């Protein structure tokens, strides 16, 4: 045991300090730059080795393979390119971390937003069918965290029928389907019914992802979603008046 300690001490003693700029900026280890010269100044990183985060190290993500990364980067970049530098600055998003099999406390998740660190971690192997829309869903969470007071959840809840109740938390329900309802009845997806915050993110991501014509049709046929869409539109105008859906 002492020998192992001595060897470890020797390794530490003879290991020169190497400052890791990415780690210093966003406190996520094992990342390397994928692309930093983008028009809206988003900086893309990827995991070169698995990493663990959080005080209890309960956030875990693995390194993706190069081919997956290449394909998914193009999709992520295409979707995030619709946001201007100004918009991203206002919502405090600057760094995108790409990894695979992202989980919190062993529950798989599409993304982890962190407005304080200006970072969005994305699981590039998350549900292929909804991958593009989910990117915008996660962008909304960054914005929501940054502008908590703008998006009032109590006001939002009032849009729903009085007998409707959200789940206690986004992971407290097994109904997490992301497929768009044919008959919306106030909610775009099953996952919308989990929490007010997830509902807002689902509305936002559909507003970004669907064509204007489709959104207008939904607005005409579903008064609850019409109110929710108007709410999101108005609040985003407050954050960035130049933003258009």
């Amino acid at each position, binding site marked *: 045991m002492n020998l192992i300690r001595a060897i470890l001490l020797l390794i*530490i*003693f003879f*290991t*020169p*300090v190497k*400052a890791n*700029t*990415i780690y210093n*900026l966003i406190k996520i280890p094992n990342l390397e*730059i994928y692309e*930093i010269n983008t028009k809206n*100044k988003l*900086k893309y990183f990827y995991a070169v080795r698995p990493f663990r985060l959080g005080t209890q190290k309960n956030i875990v993500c693995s390194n993706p393979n190069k081919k997956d990364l290449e394909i998914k980067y193009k999709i992520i970049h295409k979707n995030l390119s619709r946001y201007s530098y100004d918009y991203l600055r206002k919502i405090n998003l*600057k760094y995108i971390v790409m990894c695979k099999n992202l989980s919190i406390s062993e529950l798989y998740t599409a993304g982890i937003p962190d407005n304080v660190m200006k970072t969005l971690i994305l699981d590039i192997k998350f549900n292929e069918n909804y991958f593009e829309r989910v990117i915008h869903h996660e962008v909304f969470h960054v914005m929501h965290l940054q502008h908590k007071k703008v998006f009032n959840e109590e006001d939002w809840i009032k849009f729903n029928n009085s007998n409707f109740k959200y789940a206690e938390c986004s992971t407290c329900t097994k109904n997490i389907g992301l497929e768009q309802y044919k008959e919306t009845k106030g909610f775009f997806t099953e996952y919308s019914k989990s929490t007010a915050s997830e509902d807002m993110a689902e509305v936002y991501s559909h507003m970004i992802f669907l064509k204007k014509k489709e959104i207008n049709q939904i607005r005409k046929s579903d008064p609850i979603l019409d109110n929710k869409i108007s709410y999101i539109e108005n609040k985003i105008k407050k954050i960035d008046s130049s933003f258009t859906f």
Partner: protein
Amino acid sequence: MIKKIKASKSEKFIFVFLILLGITTFCTYYIVKNKCLFVKNIDPKNITFKKPNNIAVLNAPCGNVIIELYPNISPNAVQRFVTLIRSNAYENIAFHRVIENKLIQAGDLEFGKKGNLDYGKIGTGKSGLGTIKSEIENNFNYTKGSVGLARTFKNDTEDSQFFIILQDEPLFEGEYTPVGRVLYGLEVLKKIKYERRSEYILRPDFINSFKMLN
């Protein structure tokens, strides 16, 4: 009568060898000890600057570092920097954080003063002038020699500490408030004392003087 004994050839050879060894050791000791020996010290008086009012001269142990300040990019930060330079606040302040060939940080006026170093707190000191807002909106390429204001984990906490980078750091753009760029003297900065195993320096080098050219 004392009989003279002639030195043999091999004894002469050993004698010459010992003398040469002595000279070599003596020279090597002084050359190696003087880390500044091959560093060119630049005198700003011999240079014509386009904007002499924006030139600051930092004198470190191995010579002068000539910095051009950019008030058009970060007006408030440069104003703060110049205020501190003009009040000689940076004199005898430690280069407390040095990463070999990467970054040099100094400017802790509270815990980094020569004779009053506080190793437990160095890097957390204040100037007494309060913090200023980050100026990170303008484009600025953090290339080798760029000078920026250090801050805590949060924006708008810049005060007196500054850093100079010794390699390109594109990720610093939009993160740290730039104040200028080194025009001459990067070699001087590379000679500032660093530790291989720690970013923070025990018995660090100090800023001798930091003055505006005009």
